């Protein structure tokens, strides 16, 4: 009874095309945002359970938000445009390192041309966004093969980007400002004079980024470009024959997706890690993002969040539970068990719902609508 559309008449198409056409969804989202923007920071500032220690904020919520953002980016490419990519980690790295370079000042001596390009250190916000743009640029470049290569072949080919950039950031000392170990430190997080320092501030920063980008991304995928992407995903030949240019559709998907992933990469480096090395953006990260998107639901912004939560948090929980319960198991056994259970959970979930959490949620909604009747 709670979840019914009855009585909500739409009198204009614009209403039907709103982000959440159903009132209950809007209310739910409002509550969620309220909790995220006001509730959590309040609890955390006053160290009220479960935010007694910074753990929840630092080690769970912060990475969750950033990875959810990256998952949205990945979802645009993989879920909406159907271009399977295992290079997301690389684009995070590009975002992070470009933002780092821009934030610490760029100096390119072009000796043979007789001059040098010098850019003074940019403000953090600009560096992060430009880092995203740099990732978008590289994304377009590495998206070009997608015009010819499809499906799993493309997936493996995107690994070329992954390994190539891993190597570049490891090997080209210019990117790390010649740090001997190749590990670099983020510049101070100064936003127009306000320095972001504490976990709560960091959390709010990431939350803002994620919320804004998620809404904009949702706009995009609901609009014409989003439909072009999905058309390419579902049947590229037919799409071409109705006037969608694969070149434009695929490359915009690569660009938008890489931009978001790049911004997420910059946030991961600047806000979460603070100090990082290329390994922070390894193939494992790419795979992790792909898992999030598949488990969350391909082609669903909402699903990206759920997927990110599942892939990130469930292993941690599984790892925590035995210690918290005081079960006397060695860390080794706990970790092995964690693997086994996590793997089984993934399989179970997929068998229950091959299209991930997003579909699960929509089926639940459909059931709610019919409730109390089964069909």
């Amino acid at each position, binding site marked *: 009874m709670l979840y019914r559309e009855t009585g909500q008449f739409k009198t204009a198409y614009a209403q039907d095309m709103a982000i959440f056409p159903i009132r209950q969804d809007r209310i739910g989202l409002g509550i969620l945002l309220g909790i995220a923007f006001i509730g959590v920071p309040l609890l955390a500032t006053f160290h009220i359970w479960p935010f007694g*220690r*910074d*753990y929840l904020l*630092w*080690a769970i919520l912060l*990475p969750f938000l950033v990875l959810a953002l990256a998952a949205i980016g990945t979802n645009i490419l993989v879920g909406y445009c159907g271009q399977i990519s295992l290079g997301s980690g690389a684009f995070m790295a590009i975002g992070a390192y470009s933002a780092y370079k821009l934030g*610490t000042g760029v100096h390119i001596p072009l000796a043979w041309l007789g001059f040098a390009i010098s850019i003074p250190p940019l403000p953090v916000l600009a560096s992060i966004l430009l880092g995203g743009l740099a990732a978008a640029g590289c994304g377009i470049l590495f998206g070009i093969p997608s015009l010819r290569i499809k499906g799993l072949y493309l997936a493996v080919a995107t690994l070329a980007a992954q390994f190539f950039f891993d190597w570049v950031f*490891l*090997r080209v000392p210019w990117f790390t400002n010649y740090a*001997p*170990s*190749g*590990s670099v*430190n983020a*510049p*101070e997080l100064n936003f127009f004079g306000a320095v972001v320092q504490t976990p709560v501030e960091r959390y709010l920063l990431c939350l803002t980024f994620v919320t804004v980008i998620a809404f904009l991304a949702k706009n995009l995928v609901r609009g014409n470009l989003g439909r072009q992407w999905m058309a390419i995903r579902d049947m590229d030949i037919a799409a071409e024959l109705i006037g969608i240019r694969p070149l434009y559709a695929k490359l915009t998907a690569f660009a938008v997706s890489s931009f978001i992933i790049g911004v997420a990469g910059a946030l991961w480096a600047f806000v*979460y*890690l*603070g*100090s*990082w*090395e290329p*390994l*922070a953006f*390894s193939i*494992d990260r790419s795979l992790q993002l792909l898992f999030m998107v598949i488990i969350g639901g391909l082609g669903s912004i909402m699903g990206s969040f759920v997927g990110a939560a599942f892939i990130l948090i469930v292993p*941690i929980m599984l*790892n*925590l539970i035995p*210690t*918290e319960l*005081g079960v006397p198991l*060695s*860390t*080794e056994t*706990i*970790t*092995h068990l964690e*693997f086994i259970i996590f793997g089984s959970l993934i399989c179970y979930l997929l068998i229950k719902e091959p299209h991930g959490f997003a579909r699960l949620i929509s089926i639940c909604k459909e059931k709610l609508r019919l409730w109390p009747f089964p069909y």
Partner: protein
Amino acid sequence: APATAQNEQFIPILSYRTGPYAVNGAPYANGVADYYNLVNERDGGINGVKLLVEECETSYATDKGVECYERLKSKGPTGAAFINPLSTGITFALTEKTAADKIPIITMGYGRADSKNGAVFAYNFPLLGTYWSAADIAIQHVARELGGIDKLKGRKISLLYHDSPYGKEPIPMLQVLAQKYGFEFTPIPVTHPGVEQKSQWLAIRQNRPDYVLVWGWGVMNSTAVKEAAAVAYPRDKMIGVWWSGAEPDVTPAGDQAIGYKSLMLQHGAGKFPVHADIEKYVYAKGKGSTEPGKVGEVLYNRGMVNAMLGVEAIRKAQEKFGQKPLTGEQVRWGLENLNLSDARIKELGFEGMLKSIRISCSDHEGTRDGRVQQWDGRSWKIISDWYTADESLIDPLVADVSGKYAADKKIQPRDCAKES
């Protein structure tokens, strides 16, 4: 969670018993855990303050390491006493956080080489040796084998390294040394985790360097030894860093490893008086964390030494702050004022494993001594005297790099002259 008693000192253990580096991570973690256990079982803690330890699995992955740190840093009545990440990557990621949280980070024989400078890195303690010390010691040994420091001139020395911050750390020092002594230095990277090294070794076979320094970890070490054998590169011209000189690094290669050498982080394998205690108080009670046969292996011993230094730092700090659980900041004082004489080391049962150590504000490394050992097919044999790394070479580099860090991070270096 089990109720924590108020008179307990919490110590986290970041370990990796799974994943690609488990082979080396597990014995180390066993040594650490067993020693803490020993302190509790034999002495009832440190001056009556029991040690409460919790292990967290990092799989040698930086982000998991950060998560573990966050999970454990404020447990126990006073929070973590200190933290041993056992990974250079995690060390880099935690350096800033630990400074903010005021928890010392002990990186014995690894971590950032520039953190020797305690004036900038107030909370980092690369005890017993950094990679720059290691590099210098290795070159000293090469010179000794060649018959004199002047014989280095014109020689070829290659560095086969794990392509990560860990493997890259020694490069600047080796470049300095190459310039100074006039040998030709070639760094050769091996991609993580190092299962494939054929091209590297084919190149080595052609290039015929006089020595190959191995800066590997995990599977990379044993693979290097095997590949060396495959291209018939003499194993006794290979010198591993102290992380490339344990049993798991040579046993998979079997007889092919005979002759392979490595640095020692002071101690080697073998049993010392403290091991008798471990066997008596820990293993006899069935509380050991590994098979008794593995007690006394290189990495096990290193874990013990690491744990012991931490315990002694707490003990030292208790002298100043009282016999109660201490905060990280207090333990840091203990670490910075740690001064273990030979006599004290003997008392602790570590005689023969360690030389005396003295840590200060300006020198968070304490000592930079090392020896060289060689694998004879069954065990490691010590084949050299003690070397001490040359501070006059290392310090300028430390000052330079740590100065840059301080400037980046807007850290006002402490004035060590004023610190007690």
